[in-house]
């Protein structure tokens, strides 16, 4: 079995990293700049973020490739640099990755609408994802994270592109928000549908990322756990951002987050980490909880 999957299935909870985007901003990424281009122009910054997370106790870090697909990079005129950005990103993460830890390739949505609602043909979406994910594998990533998905059709295409073009394990999550109709994505996809579709597409780990904060993530994990035998991943935002001294600051500090993260752990996740607004201090806290719960098995 693949080493990453072996670790996931060991029964020990794995700790992922926190956010990349908000960490880049703390290091002066200008608003509206292309974060993935930093893999080339500011490699030392990207590397230091990965190192901070490994030092804080992460078992897995995600590459700075969330938007490294042709559709998104086009905005910056970088549509022909997908492979270059992905290879550089994986190499940066691997350069600080300790023995026995993992580097996962981040894959976000295309940002375009699929036909017939929008103009993106299914085949083109597939090719866009395949191009990115193949480059992540070529660079030496241990797994691929399909994340922040809202439309289930696009999410499934991304998972299939990974499964059919690489041998990488696939971790697949969507972004849910609590509303009058329960936990749904902006496209209206509920947790049950997400699990079914991701399972059919062959995802190895299923879960949720981003969203409105750790409280909602607790509810998500509790709803998800009884619905699948597959390992579950949860990567929450640190609440809602505010704007303080020129950067977005999130309301859930490591202290505020701690008891909530513990509840997520006890609700049966297999991989925990953070999304927007979480930093190394959050991850360090979760590592402490995990160490304290060392005897705790799912």
């Amino acid at each position: 079995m693949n080493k990453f999957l072996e670790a996931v299935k060991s029964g020990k909870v794995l700790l992922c990293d926190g956010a990349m985007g908000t960490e880049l901003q703390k290091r002066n990424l200008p608003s509206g700049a292309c974060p993935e281009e930093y893999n080339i122009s500011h490699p030392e910054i990207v590397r230091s973020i990965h190192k901070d997370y490994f030092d804080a106790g992460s078992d897995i870090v995600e590459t700075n490739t969330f938007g490294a697909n042709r559709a998104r990079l086009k905005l910056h005129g970088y549509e022909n640099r997908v492979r270059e950005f992905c290879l550089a990103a994986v190499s940066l993460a691997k350069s600080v990755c300790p023995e026995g830890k993992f580097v996962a390739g981040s894959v976000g949505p295309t940002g375009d609408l699929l036909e017939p609602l929008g103009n993106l043909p299914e085949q083109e979406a597939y090719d866009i994802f395949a191009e990115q994910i193949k480059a992540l594998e070529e660079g030496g990533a241990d797994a691929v994270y399909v994340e922040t998905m809202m439309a289930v059709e696009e999410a499934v295409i991304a998972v299939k592109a990974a499964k059919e073009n690489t041998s990488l394990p696939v971790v697949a999550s969507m972004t849910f928000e609590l509303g009058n109709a329960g936990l749904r994505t902006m496209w209206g996809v509920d947790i049950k549908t997400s699990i079914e579709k991701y399972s059919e597409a062959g995802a190895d780990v299923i879960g949720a990322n981003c969203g409105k904060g750790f409280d909602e993530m607790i509810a998500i994990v509790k709803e998800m756990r009884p619905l699948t035998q597959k390992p579950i991943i949860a990567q929450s935002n640190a609440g809602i951002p505010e704007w303080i001294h020129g950067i977005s600051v999130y309301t859930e500090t490591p202290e505020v987050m701690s008891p909530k993260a513990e509840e997520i752990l006890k609700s049966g996740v297999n991989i925990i980490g953070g999304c927007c607004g979480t930093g190394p201090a959050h991850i360090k806290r979760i590592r402490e909880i995990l160490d304290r719960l060392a005897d705790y098995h799912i």
Partner: protein
Amino acid sequence: MTVELLKELSDAVIDGNKDKSVELTNKLLDLGMNAKDILDNGLLPGMEVVGIRFRDNIIFVPQVLISARAMKSSLALLEPLLSKAELKGSGTVIIGTVKGDIHDIGKNIVAMMLRSSGFSVIDLGIDTRAEKFLDAIKKENAEIVGMSALLTTTMGYMKTVIDRIKEENILVKVMVGGAPISKAFADQIGADGYAKNATDAVKLAKSLIGIVTKEETVE
């Protein structure tokens, strides 16, 4: 007869039935109804229901987009027949997704709901720089500018635009929205208002230019 047809037109928009919506619009025009009445009493009430259902999580993004397409197709038939004053409506809103951000679905829905509520909307699209916002505000003499961002790495650009507006002393109300945006964030960057969804955005736009709205509920 025309009352029923108008109701059918509203329903076609709510159901996102583009062919039906176009057919009914043409029929009403053939019957001699003026474009403004078809807009006000057929299309707009339909979109209002769509907006409220979207706000209340009864429908989601895909259904809104399908309704919007029906509405747009009918509107295309009416627009050449509407006068300039009728097109200008309650006020002009400049709207765009900020620099570095390509996400325009939410912004498009807000633009469409504003149009459906009688605003004239100039949509600058995605990846919009401050200069482009400012030029459009001045050129159109707009009452309101609306900015959208989905990414934490682009939301800060809203402040860049607001700072430029203040530097140049331009009289325009600023409203912001998008997944990572909150009321607190909007206040801190100096926006005049924040709306959580497209229906609230319409209410906000109206209140920013002094139109009082009644509380709407789903029937």
